[in-house]
């Protein structure tokens, strides 16, 4: 199977503090991989490095800091978005914004179809005309995911998309993304604190701990990785 992301001897450090020490792994295409790890383990740092490698102009080496991203179209859902309380665009207009980042100003008929399809995948068809500022937290999160899906990515990267949601809405988003991933056959790299759904809805895990990266099938997910979320919940309590 072809790899969508290949990382060789990658090091991440802030000053003298080393976050990831010489890590190497490969992420296969067309599968859902969950990135697990405690706060400060380097999850967001790693994702940003992958995005950076994807966004750099492609050279003969096609590799940035030991990271090679072999994908035509990557879409990214960041953890935070500050759109303001009077944000005027509807859910459909918001989803259509990023469908293409250059070219003819107006959406083509085909692109409008992709917006509708993406909204349907996250169950927002009925709310397409609602201003995003009036949507609930869960609806907003689903609109962010729909915006990424409408770009028809072969690789979708999500940074804790369910962090601000309650258990019920979180479960809905997880199953909708899994559904979209299987339907479109795209790769998904998903940073998550919540490990409760990982066994049932993902293919692989990438566990960042003690400066190392451990990749494997979810069937062999170590108990220590699975308990991250529980420990953090206990810490809060």
């Amino acid at each position, binding site marked *: 199977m072809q790899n969508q992301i290949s990382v060789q001897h990658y090091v991440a450090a802030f000053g003298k503090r080393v976050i990831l020490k010489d890590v190497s792994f490969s992420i296969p295409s067309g599968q859902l991989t969950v990135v697990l790890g405690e706060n400060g383990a380097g999850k967001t740092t790693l994702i940003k490095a992958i*995005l*950076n490698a994807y*966004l*750099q*102009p492609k050279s003969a080496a096609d590799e940035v800091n030991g990271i090679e991203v072999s994908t035509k179209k*990557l*879409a*990214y859902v*960041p953890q*935070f*978005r*500050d*759109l*303001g309380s*009077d*944000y*005027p*665009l*509807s859910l*459909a*207009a*918001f989803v259509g*914004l*990023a469908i*293409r*980042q*250059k*070219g003819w*100003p*107006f959406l083509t008929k085909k692109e409008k179809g992709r917006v509708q399809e993406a909204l349907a995948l996250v169950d927002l068809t009925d709310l397409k*005309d609602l*201003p995003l500022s009036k949507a609930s937290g869960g609806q907003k999160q689903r609109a962010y995911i729909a*915006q990424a899906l409408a770009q028809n990515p072969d690789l979708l990267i999500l940074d804790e998309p369910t962090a601000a949601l309650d258990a019920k809405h979180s479960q809905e988003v997880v199953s909708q993304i899994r559904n979209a991933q299987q339907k479109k056959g795209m790769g998904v790299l998903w940073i998550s604190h919540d490990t409760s759904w990982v066994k049932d809805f993902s293919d692989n895990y990438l566990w960042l701990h003690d400066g190392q990266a451990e990749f494997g099938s979810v069937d062999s997910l170590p108990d220590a990785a699975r308990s991250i979320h529980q420990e953090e919940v206990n810490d809060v309590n």
Partner: protein
Amino acid sequence: MLTEAYMQHAFLAGTIIAVVSALVGTFVVARSYNFLTHSLSEIAFAGAALGFWLGFAPLLGMMIATASSALAIGALENAKVKSDNVTSAISAMAIGLGILFLALGNSSSTAATGILFGSVLGISMGDIALLALMAAVVIGLIFILFRPLSLLAFDEAGLLLSERKKGLLRVAFLLIMALSVAISSQLVGSLLIFVLVTLPAASARTYQKSVAGLIALAVFFALFGTWAGLALAYLTNLPTSVFIALIEVAIYLLSLALAKLD
């Protein structure tokens, strides 16, 4: 009214200015750059005063001053320097320099009033040609950059570009803003720049839910205010900017009230 050449010129210039201001204003308001627009208009004042002193077209002076300031502000923004305070310092300096240039050029108070409050009723066909050229540049740039600019203004987090390309886009947007401020100053003056650049776009946000819809309604509000303002100025012999300002503020307050009721 429309049989007189100076009013034909004023309507033609007013139409060009209203369209460009509202178009750019839609992105300015979405990106919350209202304050920066005001600062650029003060910088435009200094540029125009420099033109009076050195004997070249005030519009050209405005364009050079605003564009170079936009480049400086863009560099600061890309260097992640918090630029609000720096922008305040630059605009204070611009006003000071503007007053100095007017004094050095022994310019009449009419010249200063023209820059500060607009003077579209005396506009020549030559000035209109220059306005039209600048407007074409702004509209052309927005047409080419529409998709990335829409993302930059309405959802910067969704703009997946390398830092270098993002930086270039930010600077391009600031240059578009700078040109539109110089254009808009011709009608409402540099003191009332909010009137055409930000108010119509801010009012449109109550009614429209797409970028194209916001632009269309902002252009409509700006044109309505401009045409009605010119007609009222003709009938009352009072300055045009007074009426345009009052009409645009009234539209904005009504939109705000409707938004609260919703």
